């Protein structure tokens, strides 16, 4: 059985929906919270969001996948630890590692699921200040050569929403050095490190650049009036980037 995002409080179809013809899956686990937001971002970027249900095993032929934020299964054990075993995740792991290199973006809880799935190295622990934090956060795009960052300039600073409880990115020094050396640090916190992440890392990619994990929330910064400071739309670039990637045939 597949889920549908809008039940009540529907969002409208984007103007000229699905311009690119791309279909981007948004996975819903029990406890996922930002699936509707991610679907809206996909739509505003000009693609068609496709609802994927955690218990299903079909990727429905989508061109890319987003694992949205939330608290999958309540995250009472360790963030993302249970979601990683969902049937849908096996399909996503296979597709991400396949030759086709399915673009996968994990946001917040999605990032946590990606590290639990070993699609990305490292792990996430509780914020160093031990509190949930929600704020407008400046990031620097460190690498625009991934499937999800091509629409930014390397070195560009963007302001998007940060909100997390377990957002402190950690990895051993060797892994961190390798990430730096290989240009796999995709985003870094600027101005203030909001959770104690090693080396101010906010987002990383896999070697191939098709899998990106990002702690802050670009999907909350895609529409003027509802983003950071109720004005920002800096997050939209993430979603238009993957469309460019797909059109460019690098999939």
């Amino acid at each position: 059985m597949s889920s549908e995002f809008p039940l009540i409080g529907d969002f409208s179809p984007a103007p000229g929906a699905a311009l690119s013809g791309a279909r981007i899956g948004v996975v819903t686990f029990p406890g996922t919270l930002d699936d509707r937001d991610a679907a809206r971002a996909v739509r505003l970027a000009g693609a068609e969001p496709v609802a994927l249900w955690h218990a299903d095993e079909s990727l429905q032929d989508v061109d890319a996948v987003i694992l949205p934020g939330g608290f999958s299964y309540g995250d009472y054990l360790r963030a993302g630890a249970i979601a990683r075993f969902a049937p849908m995740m096996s399909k996503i792991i296979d597709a991400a590692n396949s030759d086709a290199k399915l673009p996968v973006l994990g946001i917040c809880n999605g990032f946590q699921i990606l590290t639990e799935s070993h699609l990305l190295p490292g792990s996430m622990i509780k914020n160093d200040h031990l509190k949930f934090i929600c704020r407008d956060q400046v990031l620097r795009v460190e690498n625009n050569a991934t499937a999800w960052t091509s629409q930014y300039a390397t070195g560009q600073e963007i302001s998007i929403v940060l909100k997390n409880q377990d957002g402190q990115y950690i990895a051993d020094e060797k892994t961190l050095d390798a990430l730096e050396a290989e240009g796999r640090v995709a985003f870094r916190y600027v101005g203030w490190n909001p959770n104690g992440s090693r080396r101010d890392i906010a987002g990383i990619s896999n070697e191939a650049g098709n899998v990106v994990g990002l702690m802050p929330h670009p999907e909350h910064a895609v529409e003027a009036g509802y983003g950071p400071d109720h004005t920002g739309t800096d997050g939209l670039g993430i979603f238009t980037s993957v469309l460019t990637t797909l059109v460019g045939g690098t999939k």
Partner: protein
Amino acid sequence: MTAEAHKFNIDTVEHAATTPDTELPWAELGLKQNEFEEIVKLLGRRPTAAELAMYSVMWSEHCSYKSSKNHLRQFGEKVTEEMKKDMLVGIGENAGVTNLGDGWAVTFKIESHNSPSFVEPYQGAATGIGGIVRDIISMGARPVAVMDPLRFGAIDHPDTARVMHGAVAGIGGYGNSLGLPNIGGEMVFDSVYQGNPLVNALAVGVMRHEDIRLANASGKGNKVVLFGARTGGDGIGGASVLASESFDDSKPSKRPAVQVGDPFAEKVLIECCLELFKGSLVEGIQDLGAAGISCATSELASNGDGGMQVELTSVLLRDPTLTPGEILMSESQERMMAVVSPENVAAFEAVMEKWAVEYSWLGEVTDTGRLIITWNGETIVDVDPRTVAHEGPVYDRPYARPEWQDALQADTFRASEAGAGLPATGGELKAAVLELMASPNMCDKSWITNQYDRYVGGNTALSAPDDAGVIRVDEETGLGVALSTDANGRYSFLDPYTGAQLALAEAYRNVATAGAVPMAVSDCLNFGSPEDPDVMWQLAESIRGLSDACMELGVPVTGGNVSLYNQTGSTPIHPSPVVAVLGKLDDVARRTPSGWRNDADGQAIYLLGTTRDELDGSEFANIRGHLGGLPPKLDLAAEKTLGAILINASRDGMIDAAHDLSEGGLAAALSEMALRYGVGARVALDDLCERDGVDAFTALFSESQGRALVAVPRSEEVRFNDMATARQYPVVRLGVVDTETSALEVQGLFHLDLGELREAHEATLPKYF
């Protein structure tokens, strides 16, 4: 659950009829002798242990409103036809429903979770959110936002940190996990709340008209199902004495009185219920809150057209040792009860399986007019459900104006010692503004609000610290709602009638300031013991004042909650009627933020309204430790006009920013507007002082009502002035937005650097918590 697990000597109806003289623990359960006698009269025999459990919780103050009912009636009586026109569901259901137009409806309600939040702040506050959100789901709505007005003891009292950390983390931990943006609230520190912190929670939901659901059980043969979390021993409270019903001392007799929340279970329950509504799979639905299954069965049955038969051993339990009475009283969270027609049973079960939600079929709707509950087939409850749910005792509690009230009102700030040596020079006024903005009640609250997700859902158009929270409902049209909650316990202490009206006026003004048309009211009435005639008078006056003002402003009360016995020993809290106002915006893109941005250079700053010498009960007086005199005067007609000006100015693009004047007066409003986006301003008070006959100190710190500060683009000044003049509303130009100064400059008096102001404003909460 097998029968074998329960080795109680079950007190059946049959047994009760033959043992009239059995001693029952009615007093320990909180029932008065007259109430117990009434139950015996209603039943024509002594109640069984299970029946006693049900009556005791349902006839409690919390569930029956027995002390306030006679007064609360005014909310239903002082309503015009005009006020009813957008009310789709009124008081009495889980939450009222208001028509938003375009086929949309909105439901909202505010409730208290005060005592549990004092005992166990994290779980108390968390389950407060959980409970109010379930009320919203029960109406058929998708919850879209929450708010939380908080009132704690003195900021420097050691116990305040315990309550603060726990309650804020609980609200965040639960609300954030539900995916509901937290869009505002209040934070007040006052030693009167030291032993009785107020943790109120508001939730708002939206739905299409056809999705409205009511809590009633109709249709003989329809099935009754309990779903969600299992029933455990949490939240049974005073019911532990019910262990006696088993005549067996071997089981633990003390149960925790505070419920424990599981936000994940609630999030799943929300999605699962919405799917049930979408498929029209339930005939009636009721959340389980206070009084648990006792409440759900008796309310569903008495609101329906027949009766209900339920087998209690079918309830899925977390703890197999629970007695029938405990099962009936348990307040375990994240549970719902629904009535499902036989043809929808399979579809209902499929939705449960999809979301992995546990459920059990308990029984069915009957046409007997009786609520019958059995235990392994033996009848343990046989009652008329109306006598449990709706026909509880009602008290006309004696009340009288306290004899100290006159002396309190005569003790004005100006005449007091605290009112001597008021700031007058520029330097003194600057220091006073800094002190005000750093004071516990006026300081920056982002230490709290940054622990709440305000963005989830992608529809938050305004949130704290703006005047109102604004949520978009329809993405196509921009239709949305604005919400604000307000109360001022000090005003209400000085004059409860006016105090409640002032709370309404401020919430109304906040909603209008954001550009929304006020439509409906929900109230959470927090008071001390109704058995104290002084407190009862405060309650009666507050309800009378609030209902009168609702009538005059044309906004109906659609629901709410009363929380009594908020007192330590014989010392009650200040009367604290928290009033929530909901407003409507045709297009949330038109909402007005509470500060000017750096593209507003040169915009004119206008003050709407008249400033009088009104410092009694003010924040300034509070900082000096004085509370006496009379609260600010209220002119509801003026509030209406001011609201209309703000709404039209927003709609017609005449103002870019607006902020209401309330606690802290003009000094606070100017500071907050400048700090909102870190953009300064140059103002002069001379014209204002001359017109209103006040000095600079009064101009800055008076809390006169009916005022708002607005930023008007140069091109709109003529139009704006014309509109205010046409409505005969006083308006004075104070100065301009200045993006160069990064300071608040009050000409001829002081130059206050925004960095310095921000530092003072933001340092307070982190210093204590």
